[in-house]
C-alpha cells in the first residue's frame, strides 16, 4: 500500500484537474487538461524524444564532469590546506552568482552551443558535490586514521580503505542534490543559449511552443522535464541504497 500511495495521489490530482477543466470551462490555451497534454506528447512523440535526448545528454555529461572534477578537487583539498584556501573562494563565487546571470557571458565566450550549455549545467551541479565530498573526507574518524598510521599505510591506501569509503555517504547525498541541479542548469543554459547545434532541447521546445501558442505542447515539455528529474533522482536513490544498505546506519536492518 505504502508504495502505491504517491502514484495514487498524483492520479487523483490529474483526474481532479481533468474534471475541473470541464466543469469550470477553463480555456484550453490557458490550462490544457491532462488528456490534451498526453495527446500532445503522443502526436509530437518523435520530436519530443529527440529534444529529451539532447537535454538528457547535456545533463548527464555535466553530471559526470561534476563527479570527476569534484572528486579530484576534494582529494587535492583534503591533502593540501593551501589549495583549499586558495581555490575554495573561487568555487563559492561561481556558486553564489546566479547561473542565469553568467549564462549570457558563457554564450558569448564559448562558440559551441552544446559546450556552453554543458558549462552552465556543470557550474550549477558541481558545488554541492564538492562541498559534500570534502565534508565526507574530513569527517574520517581519528581512530580510523590512527589505524592506518599504525600499519604505515600509503596515501593511496589511506584513500582507498578509509577516507573515500567514509566520504561515500556524503558524496551520494551531494549527488542527489546535484542530479536535480544539473537538469536545472541544462534547462537554464538552453533558455539563454538557444538550440544546441541546431537541435532544440526540451527548454527550447518550451520557448518555441510559447511563440506558436501551442500551450499543450508547452505543458508536454514541462511534464517531460519533471519526469526526467524524478527518474534521475530515484535512480540516484537506488544506487545510493545498493551501495550503502550493507553497512551504513541510514539503512537500518529489520530482521
Amino acid at each position, binding site marked *: 500500500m505504502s508504495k502505491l500511495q504517491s502514484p495514487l495521489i498524483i492520479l487523483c490530482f490529474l483526474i481532479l484537474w481533468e474534471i475541473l477543466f470541464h466543469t469550470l470551462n477553463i480555456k484550453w490555451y490557458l490550462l490544457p487538461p491532462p488528456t490534451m497534454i498526453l495527446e500532445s506528447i503522443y502526436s509530437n512523440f518523435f520530436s519530443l524524444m529527440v529534444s529529451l535526448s539532447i537535454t538528457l545528454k547535456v545533463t548527464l555529461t555535466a553530471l559526470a564532469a561534476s563527479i570527476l572534477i569534484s572528486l579530484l578537487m576534494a582529494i587535492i583539498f583534503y591533502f593540501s590546506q593551501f589549495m583549499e584556501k586558495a581555490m575554495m573562494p573561487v568555487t563559492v563565487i561561481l556558486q553564489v552568482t546566479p547561473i542565469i546571470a553568467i549564462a549570457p557571458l558563457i554564450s558569448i565566450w564559448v562558440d559551441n552551443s552544446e559546450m556552453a550549455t554543458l558549462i552552465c549545467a556543470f557550474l550549477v551541479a558541481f558545488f554541492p558535490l564538492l562541498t559534500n565530498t570534502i565534508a565526507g573526507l574530513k569527517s574520517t574518524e581519528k581512530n580510523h586514521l590512527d589505524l592506518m*598510521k599504525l*600499519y604505515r*599505510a600509503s596515501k593511496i591506501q589511506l584513500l582507498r580503505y578509509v577516507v573515500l569509503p567514509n566520504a561515500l555517504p556524503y558524496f551520494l547525498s551531494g549527488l542527489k542534490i546535484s542530479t536535480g541541479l544539473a537538469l536545472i542548469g541544462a534547462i537554464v543554459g538552453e533558455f539563454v543559449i538557444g538550440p544546441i547545434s541546431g537541435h532544440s532541447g526540451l527548454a527550447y521546445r518550451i520557448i518555441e511552443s510559447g511563440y506558436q501558442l501551442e500551450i499543450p505542447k508547452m505543458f508536454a515539455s514541462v511534464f517531460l522535464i519533471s519526469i526526467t528529474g524524478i527518474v534521475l533522482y530515484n535512480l540516484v536513490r537506488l544506487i545510493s541504497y545498493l551501495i550503502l544498505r550493507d553497512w551504513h546506519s541510514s539503512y537500518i536492518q529489520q530482521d
Partner: protein
Amino acid sequence: MTLRVLTDTDRQSKLEVDQEKLIAQLGSISKRFAGTSNNALENINLEVFQKDFLSIVGPSGCGKTSILKIMCGLIKPSSGSINWPTSNFQNSPENPANLSFVFQEPNLLPWMNVYENIKMPLKILKEDNYSADEKIYEIIDLVGLKGFEGYYPKQLSGGMSMRVSIARALVTQPKVLLMDEPFSALDENRRFELSQEILKIKKEKNLTVVYVTHSIYESVYLSDRIYVMQSHPGRIFEELDFSGIDKNEDYRFTPEFYEQAKVVSDSLKRAQIV
C-alpha cells in the same frame, strides 16, 4: 611466590638477569601536549620483557593510553627514548607487523565485513592473497568468529566486534600486543570470557602483551606485572610483580585473588595521596 613490590634495586637486578628477554625499554619518557602547560607524562621508565603480560593501571586521565600510543609511534614523546633491542625481532623493530594495537573501541571499518576488516592490515602490508587467507582463517578459528565472515560491523554485538578487532590485531602475527582498555565497554561476563581467551591466545602465540586498564580485578587476573600510575602529571608510582602465580579459571574466586586485588587497590590509593 606471591605478589611483591619491586624496588629500584629489584628492577636493576631483573634487568641484568633478563637482559636477553628485553623487548622494549622506555627511558625517561615525558610528554607535553601542544597547547597545555603541564606534562601529561613525566619521567616514565618501563621495561617490557618477552612473554610478559604487563598491565598499566591508573585513574582515568593519568596518561596510560599515551604510553601505549608512544610505544607504537602514534604520538611522539616530548623527551626520552624507546629502545627496542633488535635481537628479539625478525625484521626491524619498527616493522608494523611486529606490533599490534587493540583500541578501546573495536574501531572496525563499517564498510568492510568481518573478513575484509581482518584482511585489511595484510592488504596494506601487501601480503599475497593465498598466504593472507591462510592466516585469516586460522585467526578466525582462534578467536571464535567462524561463520561470521560475511557480517558487517553494525550487525555484530559489542563482544563480537571486539573479537574482530583482536583478530585484526593478531592477523599480522605480531610479537607484541598493545591493548588499550579493550573490554571496558563490555558486560562482566563477556569481559571475563574474552580475558580468558586473551590468556589462551597469548600462550598459544607466545605473545607479549602490554595491557592498559582501570580495572583492578582485570589487571590482577591477567598480569604478571603491574605498573601502578599516579596522575597530574602521569608518573609510574610503583611496580608490582605477580609472576609465578598459577591462574586457573577459579583463581578469581580465591582469597589470594582478593588479597592481591587489595594490594593493587592500596597501591592506587597511596599513589593518589602522594
